[in-house]
């Protein structure tokens, strides 16, 4: 780290020490998926915004920062390892960059400040019951009627739709030509008449995804982002952020620390704790090696103007590694995976937990991590992309 970077790190640490309350830390620690407690996430979002740090990756003219890549990396690492709750990121990390690239002046002015301040919470309506991996086959129809589109259809697996007041979605505006050619990118208010949702209970027993229904929902044509029938290019630009924008290596550090903490306390057999068991610790070491390899892969992506294929490599290797580490943590936790302790994940829970403190998150985290190779382009789709685009196999 350079001297400037050290100064910056100190500044971030001081900020965290001052503003990240014990309750917010609890919300960060108790995360079992990419989402934290809603109220805490929002509270932290506002604190960051007041400092000008809610959307640091945006250009400074839109309220971002002019940090270097290393500063971004330091910032993210300090927040994550300091157990800050994750922000609801779809607006900041995904919609923001495309608004900046494709949005009209009016759209930028209308939406960007509200994303940055946390006033608007966005969800992403791409997938449909019939269109998952084959996203281009999506069938939600948007028909032009004067200044509005009349939208009919349904979106599924929409994360945090029940907490969002806005949705960005892909809709079909034409059935001519290639399926990709008739897709448009629309922004909508969740309280638009004709938009409704049903919550989906996840495997861990909580609600994070929803199905969103459009029934003659009238959405102003002014809410089109990019040109009509150009939605596919807009979305592809966005997918780059979904796949490459994430620092998996920081996740790995946190997951490894947790696995180690559990393995140092729980016994594998006859007086030998997991950390001291040869087979277990070899396995852990092998995963640490992969984590280092991935960290440097991410650095190469950041240093490159055209990361292209490495982005898919990072997403694939990064998610699969997260899954392996969380499985190892769950292994070491042994019998203490069993108690269902959803209450204990609430930030204001005060009773004693069953088993070690980290027992409350480990199993849910392990389960939820299985989704990381499904969303944002499944592992199989990523492999297809690498095979075709990188290795030239067809």
């Amino acid at each position, binding site marked *: 780290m350079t001297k400037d970077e050290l100064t910056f790190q100190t500044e971030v640490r001081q900020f965290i020490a001052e503003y990240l309350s014990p309750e917010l830390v609890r919300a960060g620690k108790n995360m079992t998926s990419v989402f934290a407690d809603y109220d805490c996430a929002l509270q932290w979002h506002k604190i960051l915004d007041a400092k000008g740090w809610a959307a640091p990756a945006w250009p400074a003219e839109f309220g971002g920062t002019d940090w270097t890549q290393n500063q971004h990396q330091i910032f993210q690492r300090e927040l994550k390892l300091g157990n800050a709750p994750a922000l609801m990121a779809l607006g900041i990390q995904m919609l923001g960059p495309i608004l900046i690239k494709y949005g009209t002046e009016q759209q930028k002015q209308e939406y960007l400040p509200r994303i940055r301040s946390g006033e608007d919470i966005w969800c992403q309506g791409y997938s449909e019951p019939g269109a998952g991996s*084959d996203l281009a086959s999506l069938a939600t129809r948007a028909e032009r009627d004067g200044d509005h589109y009349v939208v009919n259809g349904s979106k599924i697996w929409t994360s945090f739709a029940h907490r969002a007041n806005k949705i960005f979605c892909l809709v079909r505006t034409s059935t001519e030509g290639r399926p990709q050619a008739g897709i448009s990118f629309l922004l909508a208010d969740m309280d638009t008449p004709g938009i409704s949702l049903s919550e*989906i209970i996840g495997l861990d027993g909580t609600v994070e995804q929803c199905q969103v229904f459009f029934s003659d929902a009238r959405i102003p044509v002014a809410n089109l982002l990019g040109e009509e029938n150009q939605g596919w290019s807009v979305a592809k630009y966005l997918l780059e952020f979904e796949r490459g924008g994430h620092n998996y290596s920081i996740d790995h550090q946190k997951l490894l620390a947790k696995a180690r903490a559990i393995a140092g306390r729980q016994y594998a057999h006859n007086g030998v704790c997991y950390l001291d068991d040869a087979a277990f610790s070899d396995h852990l070491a092998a995963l640490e090696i992969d984590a280092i390899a991935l960290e440097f892969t991410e650095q190469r992506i950041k240093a490159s103007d055209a990361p292209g294929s490495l982005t898919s490599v990072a997403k694939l290797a990064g998610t699969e590694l997260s899954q392996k580490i969380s499985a190892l943590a769950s292994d070491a936790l042994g019998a203490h995976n069993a*108690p*269902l302790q959803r209450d204990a994940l609430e930030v204001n829970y005060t009773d004693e937990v069953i088993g070690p403190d980290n027992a409350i998150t480990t199993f849910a985290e392990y389960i939820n991590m299985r989704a990381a190779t499904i969303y944002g382009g499944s592992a199989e789709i990523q492999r297809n992309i690498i095979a075709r685009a990188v290795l030239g196999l067809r």
Partner: protein
Amino acid sequence: MESSSAGNFNDEQQMLADSVAKYLTETYDFETRRAVANGDLLTPQPQWQQFADMGWLTLPFDERDGGFNGGPKELAIVFEAFGEHLVLEPYLETVVLAGTTIANGEEALKKRYLDGIMAGDIHAAFGHGEAEHSAERYYVATSAVQSADGWRLNGAKSVVANGPLADVVVVSARISGDVRSPQGIGLFAVERGAAGFTARDYVTVDGRRASEIILDQVDVGAEALISSARETLDQTLDLGCFAVCAEAVGAMQALLSATVEYCQQRRQFGQPIGSFQALQHRMVDMYIALELARSLLGATTDALANNSRHSERLISALKYRVDQSARAISYGALQLHGGIAMTDELNVGHYFKRLALIEKQFGSAQFHLQRFKQQPII
């Protein structure tokens, strides 16, 4: 992709297999199971009495005690079917673990509990694991000290499955030796109502029930000591281990079938996703993982039935293999189902959760690897 693991059945075994399969197929669908999972923590599952009426609860007990005299093959038949239907009822705890242990006890003790267990009136549990030592087979810090007219027990047991319903809990307590000594561990029948017995009851991530149990100066009579032989503890834990492995094989079979069926029916890119070679190969690997586990289950069943000196080694081999296979199959099933796998509504994730907990029961992978290595080579 059928052929049961237990190999050839005689007529009686075939009847048992048919009756269990028929009952579960007809009455234990996923919604029924969901209702069982959501049932009141302290109320026995409504199906339990039917299990008793069909005679299932007498299965492993001696004819002289009024049992069916079933062996490992019968147990495997029942547990495979339980796994396939994700049965939640505490058969493992009440009948296999507590029941067969109590069957080693004095007549008075058997009279008090065994008839009731077989009739479905008495519920039981087995409390052995302690805090961070649950994977250590012989770690017992809970103490048993001889008193004027019996024993006084002190200690704590964690994640005691079926604890909330159990009228009687068979707990391990140390009579002599170091906390990790395989010798000197007694198995005691303790009633939940006993003075000094407290339990924190909860549901588990796989829809079952368990308790954290504290024994604070609990006095039991002399007859409460069932056995202090290392063999009794080993046999009980190995039988439980064997039973959950059979259950896992049933669950893995169900997961593989569900996945193959789903991939034939789900279409993306204008074709069934099962037509993609990447997915075909993954399902083939799942199938291989299943069959390897099934083969070891069959071998272990035979070894146990013949009282072979290789049974211990085989049980560890089986458990280790089942853990590996369960992982390969449940990860594959989730991945190939895509987003829908991650919902509470679909049964696939529930199989995953059950298998994940089976992996963590009856000793860690490391324990079984160690024991396998230490046993004589066949």
